[in-house]
């Protein structure tokens, strides 16, 4: 057979694709990236905004004097503008576009400015395949497409007008919309899959979006993108269970922490977050196995594997020479020999899976992606000074979640809302006995019996308080709380 290559980074990326259907191997994915990719796919075009990029390069990197005359001409009748004054404007413009921490005008391909309309949408490289999955969720929904198109093609908002001189005449470039329906491990949109629930969630959110070319609603645009971020996270942590032959009926739990100062809930919420990461890791392992199988590694024995590792067919961190490469080879061998798996192929899977998490191999795994994306997108919050994080969605994400399960003009009891969140996304808060059963099913413990009852009630009350403050819920006697799909 042809000599097999072991490129750890490629295997990792392909494993992600095999598992999720897309590459989730970037630590820099932010919600704004997903918004760009999903919506350029939806519209089928993006704008070339080179002039804005040139103008907003940080003055420290490119002085105003160096900027082309074409751009300078945009400042009508202001021939005597001082450089410092102009640089001040450039910095402000840059900051506005960088408020999502994704705007790097020197690198147009990966830059992702905060956007309010299609004028600023970029066909970005970052998060490209994740965004394609999200686009697949919405692509057949005419309501979503129609409303988002109307909102994005409306340029009446303050930001679009502010940048209008740079954008109005910008060239439109077509984008080939790409979808992701399956991965080598299976279909994504099977019946009762989380992807189906997320599709419905997008539809419900679209029901709330203003159907008007006149009114521009930036909050709704933000909620739409926030929900897309959640969709990526929720799908990723649930995919492994869906691929299991005897997977659990229930979704991977996400216990939200709204109980003020409750050690029990906070710890259990952290545990559910860790469980989600484990699921992603286990799914990635499936992807690795699939990838190695595809490469024909099943027939390899230890000696053949070691021969590859010692040869120039072993790529670790893109370094094939030098001491780092030698360190990698040595580490690989040690890991292989200490693996508790009996079968050589399983040992290889084991080592590649574990190697993914070592800095020596310079990989970035789906688990790492999900972990950092979780807090960047406002789903998770850090617990004290530790690296642990618990689930506490930020306000706009929480609003998006509510709108994704309650239609406009609907009014439902809070317990029904929680039931929907549990069934569709695995989100748990408290208030009924079902949360405990769900958590136990996934081996998440809440501690002693005494500890268990009160914190969940406290958690439920905490969420209730927030919903009342936001105007979505109203409390009534006998512990009845009704939640509406709007705050008017």
């Amino acid at each position, binding site marked *: 057979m042809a000599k097999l290559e072991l490129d750890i980074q490629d295997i990792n990326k392909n494993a992600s694709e095999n598992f999720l259907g897309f590459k989730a191997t970037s630590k820099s994915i932010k919600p704004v990236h997903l918004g760009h990719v999903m919506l350029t796919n939806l519209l089928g075009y993006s704008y070339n905004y080179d002039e804005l990029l040139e103008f907003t390069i940080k003055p420290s990197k490119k002085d105003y004097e160096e900027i082309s005359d074409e751009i300078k001409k945009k400042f009508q009748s202001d021939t005597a503008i001082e450089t410092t004054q102009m640089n001040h404007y450039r910095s*402000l413009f840059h900051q506005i576009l960088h*408020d999502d921490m994704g705007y790097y005008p020197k690198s147009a391909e990966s830059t992702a400015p905060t956007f309010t309309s299609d004028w600023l949408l970029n066909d970005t490289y970052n998060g490209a395949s994740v965004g394609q999955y999200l686009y697949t969720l919405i692509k057949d929904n005419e309501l979503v497409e129609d409303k988002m198109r109307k909102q994005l093609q409306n340029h009446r908002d*303050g930001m*679009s007008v*502010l940048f209008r001189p740079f954008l109005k005449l910008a060239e439109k470039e077509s984008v080939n919309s790409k979808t992701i329906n399956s991965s080598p491990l299976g279909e994504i949109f099977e019946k009762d899959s989380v992807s189906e629930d997320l599709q419905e969630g997008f539809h419900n959110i679209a029901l709330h979006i203003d159907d008007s070319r006149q009114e521009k609603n930036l909050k709704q645009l933000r909620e739409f993108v*926030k929900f897309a971020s959640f969709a990526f996270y929720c799908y990723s942590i649930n995919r492994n269970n869906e691929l299991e032959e005897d997977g659990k009926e229930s979704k991977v739990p996400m216990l939200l922490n709204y109980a003020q100062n409750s050690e029990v809930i906070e710890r259990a919420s952290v545990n559910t977050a860790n469980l989600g990461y484990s699921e992603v890791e286990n799914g990635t392992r499936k992807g690795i196995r699939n990838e190695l199988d595809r490469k024909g590694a099943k027939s390899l024995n230890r000696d053949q594997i070691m021969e590859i590792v010692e040869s120039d067919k072993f790529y670790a961190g893109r370094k094939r020479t030098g001491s780092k490469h030698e360190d990698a080879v040595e580490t690989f061998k040690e890991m292989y020999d200490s693996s508790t798996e009996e079968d050589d192929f399983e040992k290889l899977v084991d080592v590649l899976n574990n190697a993914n998490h070592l800095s020596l191999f310079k990989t970035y795994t789906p688990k790492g992606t999900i972990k950092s994306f979780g807090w960047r997108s406002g789903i998770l919050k850090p617990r004290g000074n530790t690296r642990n994080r618990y689930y506490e969605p930020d306000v706009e994400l929480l609003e998006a979640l509510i709108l994704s399960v309650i239609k406009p003009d609907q009014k439902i009891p809070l317990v029904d809302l929680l039931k929907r969140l549990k069934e569709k996304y695995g989100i748990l808060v408290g208030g009924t006995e079902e949360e405990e059963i769900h958590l136990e099913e996934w081996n998440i413990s809440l501690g002693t019996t005494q500890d268990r009852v009160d914190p969940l009630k406290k958690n439920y009350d905490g969420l209730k308080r927030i919903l009342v403050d936001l105007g979505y819920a109203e409390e009534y006697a006998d512990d009845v709380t009704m939640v509406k799909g709007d705050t008017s």
Partner: protein
Amino acid sequence: MNAKNGISRELLYHISQGAFAERLSQNQRKEIHISSELDEFLDEKLEEGKQIILTGNPGDGKTQYIMMEKEEYDGFFLKDGSTWEPSELIEEWNEAYSENRKGILAINDGPLQRLINDFSGDFEFLNDVDHMMENQIVMDDGYEHPNEDIILIDLSKRSVLSTKIVKQAIEKLTTVHDTSEEMDKHISYNAEKLSQEEIKNSLSQMLSYIGVIDSSVTMRDLLNFIAYCINGGKKEEVENFDEDLKFYNLAYEGRGKLFDLFREHIDPKVLTHPYLDSVLWSETEEGMEFNDSDYDAEQVQKEFLRKKRRFLFGDKKVDEIGTKEVYDKTNENFLNYRNNANLQPREKTEQLIQWLNSYFIPESDMTNSLLLWFSHNFRSKENQVIISREEAHTDKFQYKVPKLNSEISDAITFHSNQYVLEYDPGQDFNRKPKMKIDKNLHETLSSLDLGVPYVMRDEKVERKILNFMEEIQKREIGDETRAKIRMKDTETGDITKIKVNNDEFSLSGI
């Protein structure tokens, strides 16, 4: 004490323990009944043959009213709707409704909501009930009542802590027939003291002050509080009682919602008043006659606080200071603004617009239009720069105070603990963005001219204002080609302007 008139010590005891109306005899109910416009309203509507739904929280007085009216009228009277199996209740109710039987249904608002949620698909009239429930409080005239046969009154909206109700409650509960005229017994002493005009007024004022802050106190909470202030939760008189059993101390000791509010908002330690405090402190020190060596600050403070409680209750006078001066400063500011009849709604609107403008531009005194600011990112973090491009003319805003809908405006007294700035450009759309302004937000806005640095401002308040502005903005955006834009650096507070004129910028003339 008025011998043989009024309530018994035993009834007072039950009330101080939080008695339920259904456990009282009809006579007892009459003895403690606080008459109000609701009695007349119910009589009138029952005469007209209407079906009345009394809803609200437990303790709001629903049972009290239903038991009183039931004696006088025949019809459909159901006092404990909350305890019924919902499917049985709706059958029973539907039957009475179909037969046009007048009467009263008393049901807590939670079970009523559940009933509407579960059965409105099958019983059309429940949709009307839902509409009435949703529109108990309105902003405008023009409420359209959906069903002529049914009236719904949510008693949780009733301002129980109005001075009129509180005074009546004090009068009812201090009229205890089996007390003595001797002042060495605690119930007799407290009842006598609280019935004194000065003390009754002071207590009413304090409770009314609390009512502005929290409107969820029930009639049962109020009666329980006053009864406990009289008897300390004891059935029998205690002779030669000590300070702990005096009304001004008992008010801080009981358990329940109103006690919690009282402790929180009428705390003599927190409510400082330099002149009053110095007078009371000196008086306390003098009264205790310490030598330099045995001065006990803790003792002095204890006695000082006791004196201050007495002062707050009107049981001790200090020249030139009224009791309200000590606690009512913030409410006064809010209430004076809300109730100031000399200031027209238009003037109030302009004032609010000026405050909101000066939130972002401290030196602004602009009243004719509101500058609309917005921030935008997908991280839900604070923005480095916020932007403004639009202004909305003041004519499009209205100062409003929430009120009862016209159908029930004569039934109960309602005092809103907030007012509203509403955006209404006069076009036909369902949702009119509103900013609800309560006492705290009023304080924040009205004190902006004191020069609070922008970076020191409360993020939540700013979020609330920006949300309101964003809602307006989406309707105000007109020209997409021209605008004068302000960019505010949220760290420095500096504002930079630029003009967009179609495809060009201009930095002059701004």
